[in-house]
């Protein structure tokens, strides 16, 4: 396999590595603080409104940090919403600013076109089914895979970057009464603020599923080499391009 000279020294550019780890840190903070806020009302609704006196769309079978929420548990968890909300929004700002830098640079330097957009040939049913079969049989970690994303990776990363992240940011903002006052249609398009909250939850679950699969794949493909590539830019020695 031939690799363009400019990418030989580095599997991932400094931009990709820096934004990857800042985003990872932010996501962890958003997840912890998000779960913390969620347990103050682990019930979900559809439409504009919903509270402990109205029928929920569904309820998570977990205890709550508020005594006013009927959970079936005989105890109430401590209220940690103060710092959780501060941390949630601060991490969100950092993640959004990092994401904007990533998008602008990735657009300008051809990162999306070169590394994430699948080739036309890769999208054929034949090619796709072969890659899927390889994944199902846990057959990967070829040398080529260490230096380029396969078609499933490309499609997954594109969905995470251009669908899930924008959705989770939008539905998060749609819960804000001030944002709702400035941009009412950003809320009504989802059917109301409670709908936006419910979608925010489901998109977050999808992002967590992505994270779990992502880490599992890194482990299966060779934890040291893949982590090395994302930290220093260079995969382990035995993964040098040939």
């Amino acid at each position: 396999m031939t690799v363009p000279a400019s990418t030989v020294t580095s599997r991932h550019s400094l931009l990709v590595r820096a934004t990857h780890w800042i985003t990872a840190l932010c996501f962890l903070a958003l997840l912890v603080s998000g779960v913390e806020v969620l347990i103050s009302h682990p019930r979900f609704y559809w439409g504009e409104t919903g509270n402990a006196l109205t029928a929920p769309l569904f309820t998570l079978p977990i205890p709550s940090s508020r005594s006013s929420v009927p959970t079936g548990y005989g105890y109430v968890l401590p209220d940690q919403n103060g710092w959780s909300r501060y941390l949630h929004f601060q991490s969100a700002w950092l993640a959004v600013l990092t994401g904007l830098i990533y998008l602008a640079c990735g657009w300008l330097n051809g990162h999306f076109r070169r590394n994430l957009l699948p080739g036309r040939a890769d999208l054929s049913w034949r090619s796709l089914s072969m890659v899927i079969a390889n994944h199902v049989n846990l057959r990967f970690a070829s040398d080529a895979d260490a230096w380029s994303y396969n078609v499933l990776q490309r499609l997954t990363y594109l969905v995470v970057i251009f669908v899930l992240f924008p959705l989770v940011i939008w539905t998060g903002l749609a819960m804000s009464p001030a944002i709702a006052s400035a941009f009412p249609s950003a809320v009504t398009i989802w059917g109301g603020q409670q709908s936006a909250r419910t979608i925010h939850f489901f998109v977050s679950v999808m992002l967590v599923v992505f994270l779990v699969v992502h880490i599992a794949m890194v482990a299966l493909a060779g934890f040291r080499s893949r982590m090395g590539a994302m930290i220093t830019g260079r995969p382990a020695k035995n993964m040098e391009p040939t």
Partner: protein
Amino acid sequence: MSGFSRRQFLTTGVAIAAGGSGLALATGLAHRYGLIPPDSGGLYGPGETMTYAAQRLLTQHSMAREFTHSQISKAPFANAVDSLGEGFARFQEGGFTGWRLDVDGMVARPASFSVAELKSMPVRSQITHLACEEGWSYIAEWIGVPLAHVLDLVEPLPHARYVIYRSIQPDWWESIDVAEALHPQTLIAYGMNGGELPVAFGGPLRLRVPRQLGYKSVKYITRITVTDNPNLGTPCPEDWHGCANYGYAWYAGI
């Protein structure tokens, strides 16, 4: 790698200088236009400042969404409140005729109003969403006098920046900036869904701030104080994370 070239060195220097002066300029402008919240210090200060500044700029003239009568929640949720005490019970027995709302601080004409006096002022009625930071919400009609009207009567001094409002409950208070206080939808509410404001929902008087989360809409208000002090004038009990809001962010637009 042969280290930085002269050109790279110069470019980096110019970029750092530009970034630094840009930041200084932004900070200066933010102070000048009131975009720095009282809780801008500490670990979460940067995020909080960005949230407040961004939303202040975006929502300068925005109006909270208003709904139709058919959208009023059949089951509004009155969050639990601590025991209101004997003092409150006496006011309640008297039909709240003795209840007073004092307005003081940085104003030319401090005043005190009864509920009846507030009801004789221009009425505003609006059907808005009340969302709690916990995640639940309801829609109700709120009837009251705009806080802006009452502030007009007492004539705030030009350098006033914040309005503090206190509940009859000990140590329970909140504050908003003057922009939110003068917003036409910020009400001193005494009515709900066509009737009196029930005690469970904050009667006889509740400050309704529909563009912020429920914890800024303090129930049972007895005193409004205009101030320019960003520390908001009240000492902090030791078990609170922050001075302003029991550990919660001062600005609650999100």
